[in-house]
């Protein structure tokens, strides 16, 4: 018996050590979110969905504003405005500092719900996402996330050929074929997909209240700027169908913030990987423009 216990203990020890070694391979190429849940608490945050995750580059903002930024934006599924995202933001924010800058990207989708009753938060889509259950967003390695929420098989931690790379500052760099035809095809697909989403998305008072709560909360620690990022003109039409009077809908949020800038007027000046997300070069251009706009208001 003792021999068996000794052998199995050694076996479990070796397997555990190997698993920990494999987990140590997790980095920015592992998936689109992992690294964001492993860095220490941050001061200046970029918030929103995948549009912000891919489109806003902290390094560019840092060059203009001379402050270190952290991109803590995730995806439309995980981080629309709501209790889940606000809790995560609170966990990520370094509350020992003040005078920070917070960039909140907003669009109609992030204040809409997929539920039959758009204010029934018990069925909000993010309740099933990793952001809901991962309470500790500042630990490395983040075993909880790796065990419960890592998508696919773990061999991908070692051999990954994903076109996306998550930088240490939270910016998600996506390298897709930039060939015009491919971009057109992806844009067409995305626009169709969002058109289909129109039928199920509804404006949510609860989400909008949480947007305001997020602004109120962040106001304690610094200045809050609201940004509407540009999208492909075809997608803009879809967004306008969903919420034709977007600016007036968010008016009360604008009033409690330190400023609002809408880049959708210059949609055609930027290039996108799929109609929704800015490509690398356009992201850099927009981050710089946003940085100078904020600088002008500081």
């Amino acid at each position, binding site marked *: *018996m003792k021999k068996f216990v000794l052998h199995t203990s050694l076996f479990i020890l070796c397997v555990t050590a190997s698993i920990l070694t494999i987990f140590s391979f997790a980095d920015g190429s592992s998936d689109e979110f992992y690294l964001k849940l492993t860095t220490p608490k941050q001061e200046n945050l970029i918030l929103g969905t995948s549009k912000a995750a891919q489109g806003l580059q902290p390094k560019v903002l840092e060059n203009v504003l001379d402050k270190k930024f952290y991109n803590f934006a995730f995806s439309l599924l995980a981080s629309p405005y709501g209790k889940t995202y606000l809790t995560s933001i609170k966990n990520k924010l370094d509350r020992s500092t003040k005078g920070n800058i917070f960039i909140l990207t907003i669009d109609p989708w992030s204040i809409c719900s997929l539920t039959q009753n758009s204010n029934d938060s018990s069925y909000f889509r993010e309740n099933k996402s990793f952001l809901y259950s991962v309470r500790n967003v500042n630990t490395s390695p983040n075993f909880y996330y790796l065990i419960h929420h890592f998508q696919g098989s773990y061999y991908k931690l070692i051999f990954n050929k994903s076109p996306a790379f998550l930088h240490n500052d939270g910016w998600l760099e996506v390298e897709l074929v930039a060939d015009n035809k491919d971009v057109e095809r992806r844009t067409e697909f995305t626009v169709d997909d969002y058109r289909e989403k129109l039928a199920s998305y509804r404006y949510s008072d609860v989400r909008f209240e949480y947007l305001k709560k997020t602004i109120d909360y962040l106001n304690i620690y610094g200045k809050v700027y609201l940004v509407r990022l540009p999208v492909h003109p075809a997608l803009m039409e879809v967004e306008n169908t969903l919420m034709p009077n977007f600016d007036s809908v968010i008016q009360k949020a604008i009033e409690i913030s330190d400023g609002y800038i809408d880049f959708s007027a210059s949609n055609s000046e930027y290039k996108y990987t799929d109609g929704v997300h800015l490509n690398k070069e356009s992201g850099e251009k927009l981050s710089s423009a946003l940085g100078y706009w904020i600088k002008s208001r500081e």
Partner: protein
Amino acid sequence: MLFNSIDFAIFLPIVFILYWFVTNRNLKVQNIFLVLTSYLFYGWWNWKFLALIIFSSGVDYLVGLRLDKTERATNRKILLLISIIVNIGFLGFFKYFNFFAESFASAFTLFGRTFEPTRLNLILPVGISFYTFQTLSYSIDVYKRKFKPTRDIVSFFAFVSFFPQLVAGPIERATNLLPQFSAKRTFEYNNAFDGVKQILWGLFKKVVIADNCALIVNQVFDNYTNYSGSTLLLGAFFFAFQIYGDFSGYSDIAIGTARLFGFELKQNFAYPYFSRDIAEFWRRWHISLSTWFRDYLYIPLGGSRGGSWVKTRNTFVIFLISGLWHGANWTFIVWGIFNALLFLPLLLTKRNRKNLDVVATQSMFPNFRDVISMASTFVLTSLGWIFFRAESLPKAFSYLNNIFTRSLFSKPYVFGIGETQALLIIIFISVLIITEWFGRRKLHALHFDKKQNVFIQWIVCFTIAIIIFLFGGKQQDFIYFQF
């Protein structure tokens, strides 16, 4: 609690240590401990349904005792009937109420009348089909005086609820399992180590084979109208491996776990995809259920002793009920009928017991004839699995219809999940086939020769554990949990 969960990975070592080091001095205490841990294991899913198991166990325990004291045939029949009504009643209510209500309502529409059937919002208690059959077999065996009922209530409750096989079998007989609760268990290194190997092999089949195959299978079955005949056929083959990996994997983990505690459960799968005809397949697939139906239904109905009509009737009854046992859906019934149609010609021509031994007993590789027989049996069972997997009968027939088109001869496409992923699945299925082929004469594929160096065996275990961790697919529920 799922075998492939972290909860179970923590639960098992703790129970093992307490079982062998704390409760081992007193058999009764050890059995009480097993009952409690088994209830904890089951209650992890939904503790409310523990009442069903406890009630069912209580009824059969008392029925057994009364049967032992009663000599009058009528009274004995009544007692058996009580056991059958309670057990089948629970099963029928939870599993089949809605199905029969809807089918009854549909049948009425044939007479030009429609009515809305009463549907109950029921949760199917996990494993109810398994433990119901297990406890029912006890009452029948006692009634037939094949087994002396036990007076030890703890042993009996432990027999019904034994956690390794409680929710998905193997369906044990009292004759095999119950006496093991009455005897002192002794720990044997080789047995326990073999259990560990069997658990790992089961996990490999479930996590690497079944869960990865599920990716392709779900994609193909959910969008079957978009795929060519060849892809659909391949989808059915992948499902054949998924369900085999899923269910035989569960059985391996269950048997291996039981061995860690000094119990020997019956083999439930004997390399069924190496069968040379459908009769052999059914002797090798879900053996504990097939033999249950054989002993408690087929033989009492007359078995294959009567004329062609009796044989045909009994075959259809067995396969039909077997289909219905799997699920309250017409797809399972048609799956049963499909298998009956494959089995019947062999039975009527007395060729159903032609292949009783292991394929290629005397040689390392099969001969050409065996290869053709195995391949054709595999193709036929895979076609049958389409009914098992499809959501409805129209979808199953449409899927089948789409296979047999010109596109059956086109190049299949399974790379929607990514080329690397698809390639890996094919590699691991090959590993499964090769390993099981070389282990086909043994109780499980990793059952090594005793002469084999222990250190090398542990290295093999370590390699398999790492492969499971690295290449395991997205966690899926065990398919047979729903039965």
